[in-house]
């Protein structure tokens, strides 16, 4: 018995999300009186694998076949399923990001293992195995029981604290036999967003809606994001209008995020928008309409014109940052 977590790398590096997964897997293992193992596929920079040990895994399995550079759902599923069987893992933890969402369901069928996706807490109980997951786009949660002997969890990003438990983890590099023809995805072109903090990784997000009035008014909003080390976002009509890029659209049909702090400037707070941001720890709203629904979810609010208030907030932040 053991708990396995699959850790993805980004250009050879891990990020906070990885350490959240590892911390989570280690805690679940502790609840089950067993150990956590991390599986890394692909090339990583020297020293990266060792970092995983700081968050409680006892063993790291590393597979670095050339064929596995491309994320092919079927190929990755085969590799992970093989490792699960080999180490007799009974819980598999993946991230609830694009990669996790692509692999978890395939793995589920391969291993006849039930999936709890978008989980935001430790299991409520181990026997029976019960996880806490979001349903109805954040308007409710469910206690979901997974009845199969092997269970798959996809963990929501930014929902679990890092837990440092330094220990020496052993690293085992193994070769995996990849069948020719197994990798069916042909990647023609990759466009990466570089240099910017990813919206899904950001701890502070500054977002604007139609109440910003014009794409020309985004300057101070971007400045506020830069000063706070955050990312920028927007409501759907704003991206539909082409005021801001599509990657910034948050909500039910856009990005679902869980930053520590979310600023909503000129956003009414429609259910579909809130669905993407309701897991934020704090929500701050600036809106001219005191009855805007966004104030029902916000902890701090200003009833006023975003165009006038934003520059003043930029000033105030600049002041505290200069101290």
């Amino acid at each position, binding site marked *: 018995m053991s708990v396995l977590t699959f850790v993805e790398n980004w250009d050879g590096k891990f990020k906070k999300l990885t350490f959240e997964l590892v911390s989570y897997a280690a805690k679940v293992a502790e609840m089950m009186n067993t150990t956590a193992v991390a599986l890394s596929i692909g090339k990583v920079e020297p020293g990266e694998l060792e970092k995983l040990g700081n968050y409680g895994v006892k063993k790291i399995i590393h597979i670095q076949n050339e064929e596995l550079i491309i994320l092919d759902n079927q190929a990755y599923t085969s590799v992970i399923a093989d490792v699960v069987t080999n180490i007799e893992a009974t819980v598999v933890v993946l991230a609830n990001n694009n990669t996790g969402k692509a692999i978890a369901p395939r793995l589920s069928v391969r291993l006849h293992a039930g999936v709890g996706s978008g989980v935001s807490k430790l299991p409520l109980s181990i026997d029976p195995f019960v996880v806490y997951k979001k349903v109805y786009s954040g*308007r409710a949660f469910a206690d979901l029981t997974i009845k199969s002997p092997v269970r798959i969890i996809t963990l929501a990003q930014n929902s679990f604290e890092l837990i440092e438990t330094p220990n020496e983890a052993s690293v085992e590099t193994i070769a995996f036999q990849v069948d020719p023809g197994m990798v069916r995805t042909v990647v023609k*072109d*990759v466009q990466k967003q570089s240099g910017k903090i990813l919206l899904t990784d950001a701890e502070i997000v500054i977002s604007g809606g139609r109440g910003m009035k014009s794409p020309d008014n985004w300057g101070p909003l971007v400045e506020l994001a830069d000063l706070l080390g955050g990312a920028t976002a927007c409501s759907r009509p704003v991206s539909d209008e082409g005021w801001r890029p599509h990657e910034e659209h948050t909500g039910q049909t856009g990005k679902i995020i869980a930053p520590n702090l979310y600023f909503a400037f000129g956003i009414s707070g429609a259910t*579909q928008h809130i669905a993407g941001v309701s897991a934020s720890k704090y929500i701050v709203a600036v809106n001219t309409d005191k009855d805007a629904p966004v104030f029902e979810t916000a902890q701090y609010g200003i009833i006023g014109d975003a165009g006038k208030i934003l520059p003043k*907030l930029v000033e105030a932040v600049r002041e505290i940052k200069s101290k």
Partner: protein
Amino acid sequence: MKLLICISNVPDTTTKVKFTDGLKKLDETGIQWVINPWDELSLTRALDLKDDVANGIDRITVAHVGLVGSEPTIRKALAIGADDAIRINAVPEDAYFVASQLAEVIKNDPYDIILCGIESSDFNGSTVGGMLAEFLGIPSVSAVSSLKLENGEAFLTREIDGGKESVSMTVPFVAIVQKGIAKEPRIPSMRGIMMARSKPINVIEPAAIEPLTGILQYEMPKPRAACKFVDPENPSELITLLQNEAKII
């Protein structure tokens, strides 16, 4: 070429959800049921592709696992333009159950491209599409934001963490679609609504399959603290509160 669009029947996205039966069941009073937003968009994309005869799409079928109560949703998909429908007559117990029921039917009557949504707005599972592909032993491409066809080959854009990838695929495969796949969902026309009445809904009895998960009970989110308002004449007070009270910046 034959396309299959898997549709799920969900409460309208503005529904204020409530539960009954000791938080064990959704309170369905007053709920307006709709096609899951993603599925409406994938159907729209499929129809756009079919409109171009060069793509050689003969038929667009919608498939749904659900009881007779979801037929209005299926009819709507037919009114939007699907040619026919399959309804597997069972309560959609969990994603594994739904995907395996769909797979049973598709194995006997294969499709070239199967479209699923990235998530259903009720269960938020993001799992049916991938499971279905694995049951069928065919590739899946997830987080697909564009789908084009050329000489029987498919070209897709998929979102990866922090970027996009263009990939090509030969059929059959499952595409799991998200934002971008179509702009606005097609609205049924009067003619479409009339025609939908006579389009076939093929009702199939379910196979014996055990779900792997079950919902024990629902929980409502913890109410958030009431909003604290800051004087619009003095916005810097907000920054002070975020720094000293919330300790978040």
